[in-house]
């Protein structure tokens, strides 16, 4: 175990200091942070500025009243675009062309409420009750799911690539021959996977922290659905499972070749499987409660992305999550055993590409 930990430490220490790691982490953090402010920038106004001449009405939600001396001043402000509209003596609304639909409704209903109140009547507002799934956060959840999907895909493929490149670096330079006289193959392979996995988790952690931090800073957090903690935990756990699966595949395939140039070719089956997983997770983001998403979220390795995306997009019964996790863990164990076997047999056979059939018997 000590050997494994030493190898992992080296991976972390050498990679974390590289410019590539720091720069890519900074860029991702900035992008995710910016993402949290986008709704604020493009999502339209939360409040409308409305000019007032004469008596100002009682406070109205989402409307900020600005007082003007006379109608001429208010008219000018409307035309200049300083205010959206102007309310004259609580009787007339001045607008530049047609009034914004929503603002019109707000002003009209505020006006109606005030008059009804004056007449001494009280009205009870309508109560809205959802009879379907909790649809209140559907939009936000779909956005979250999309974001999560891209993040998971890039992190998974990036981390798995690094594992494969590391394996080929050691095999190609023959350093593996010296390493294997002091550590076991599983320690070397495991250390590499653990070390680069920790870096992947650091990436994921920073992205989540920056994303949530920015969401609170921008006020977007009030729109986040309840159970965000569950969504975050699910993303982390599924990342670990997906990473274990794909990085072991990457290491096993990587150990078949001796040169970085041959890596892309030999990794094709793995990258295709990852891309397929990414594509099917669109289903989960678009229709999280549909049958295809439900089935795919149980089948490894698709579950590694479909399930967290589905969890973000909609409520998922606990039983399905447990079943999906159990199946995925079983798949990870199988891949680890088979991958370690391939790696062990192939990593010392330098030169021409080793055929997979020769090392799996």
């Amino acid at each position, binding site marked *: 175990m000590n*050997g494994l930990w*030493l*190898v992992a430490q*080296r991976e972390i220490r*050498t990679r974390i200091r590289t410019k590539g790691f720091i720069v890519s982490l900074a860029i991702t953090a900035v992008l995710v942070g910016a993402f949290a402010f986008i709704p604020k920038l493009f999502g339209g106004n939360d409040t409308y500025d409305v000019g007032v001449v004469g008596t100002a009405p009682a406070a109205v939600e989402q409307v900020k009243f600005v007082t003007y001396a006379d109608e001429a001043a208010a008219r000018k402000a409307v035309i200049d675009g300083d205010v959206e509209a102007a309310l004259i003596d609580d009787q007339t609304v001045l607008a530049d062309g047609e009034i914004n639909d929503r603002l019109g409704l707000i002003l009209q209903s505020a006006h109606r409420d005030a008059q009804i109140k004056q007449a001494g009547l009280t009205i009870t507002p309508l109560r809205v009750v959802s009879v379907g799934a909790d649809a209140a956060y559907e939009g936000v959840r779909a956005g979250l799911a999309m974001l999560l999907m891209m993040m998971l895909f890039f992190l998974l493929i990036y981390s798995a690539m690094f594992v494969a490149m590391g394996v080929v*670096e*050691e095999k190609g*330079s*023959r*350093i*593996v*021959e*010296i*390493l*294997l*006289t*002091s*550590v*076991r193959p599983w320690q070397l392979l495991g250390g590499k996977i653990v070390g680069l996995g920790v870096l992947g988790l650091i990436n994921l952690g920073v992205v989540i922290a920056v994303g949530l931090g920015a969401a609170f800073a921008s006020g977007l957090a009030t729109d986040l659905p309840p159970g965000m903690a569950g969504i975050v935990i699910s993303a982390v756990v599924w990342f670990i499972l997906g990473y274990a699966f794909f990085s072991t595949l990457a290491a096993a395939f990587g150990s078949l070749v001796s040169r970085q140039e041959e890596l892309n070719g030999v990794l094709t089956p793995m990258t295709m499987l990852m891309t397929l997983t990414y594509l099917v997770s669109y289903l989960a983001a678009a229709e999280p409660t549909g049958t295809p998403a439900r089935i795919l979220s149980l089948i490894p390795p698709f579950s590694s992305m479909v399930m967290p995306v589905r969890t973000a997009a909609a409520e998922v019964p606990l039983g399905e999550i447990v079943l999906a996790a159990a199946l995925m863990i079983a798949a990870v164990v199988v891949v680890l055993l088979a991958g370690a076997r391939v790696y062990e047999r192939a990593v*010392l056979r*330098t030169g021409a590409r080793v055929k997979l059939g020769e090392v799996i018997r």
Partner: protein
Amino acid sequence: MLEIDNLRKRYGDKVALDGVSFAVRPGEMFGFVGANGAGKTTTMRIIMGVLEADSGEVRHEGRPVTYEDRRAYGYMPEERGLYQKMKVAEQVEYFGRLHGLTPAAARRTTAELLERLGLVERRGDAVEALSLGNQQRVQLAVALVHDPGVLILDEPFSGLDPLAVDALAEALKDRAASGVPVIFSSHQLELVERLCDSVGIISAGRMVACGSVAELRAGEGRGLLKVVVRGAAPGWAEGLPGEITVDGDRQVLLSADGDDQTILRRAVQAGHVEHFGRQEPTLVEIFREAVA
């Protein structure tokens, strides 16, 4: 005593090792020579456990060598391998840690080794920034950092300049003197002859000769008798076994099986004897003979 007992290895149809056996005593420097593809690297990789033999055994102090034993060995593979982007000292320390040294011990021995190998100024440089010779020294430091109980070096001298060869040779002698069996392969036979207590010659997967340099010479017979005579009349050696070559006013007789006393008397009568003696075969000659 490190014993290599009847190793056999096939790669598909090709026989790489066909019953290789030899033994190296503690403190002995063993030179492993043979043509390319003869089986040196395969043998060394099997000793290090990097490769598995089809049959045969490697024993140290009477017991079959295990993975744990090998962790205490020092190994320099034929194709050098270092992390190109890792710093020199960091790298040597890392390998020390992998071999089970504590952080403090790894740091201390690394510092000592870099000092001895003249790499102190380069300790903070990435390996890729070093010259080939210096990279080779780092490679040696990696093999020595854990104070190995056995040293296996595949072509440690290849690509080194004469000064670096001397430095490396000194380092190896030191290790051997401290009681460590040292096995190294080389194509530089004069070097092997100069450094090694014993020599093994391998050809096509079989040990064709093995023993101390003196033993190998003895095995070659007593060597040719060589006589150089100046100013002798042509035909002075008529009837003597051997071959005459003429070089100006000198005549050289090389004889394999003539009686040396008879030849000496005839030579003295014929002219001025400049040289009379048996030619010791060099390792190169022994090698040619053995693999022929």
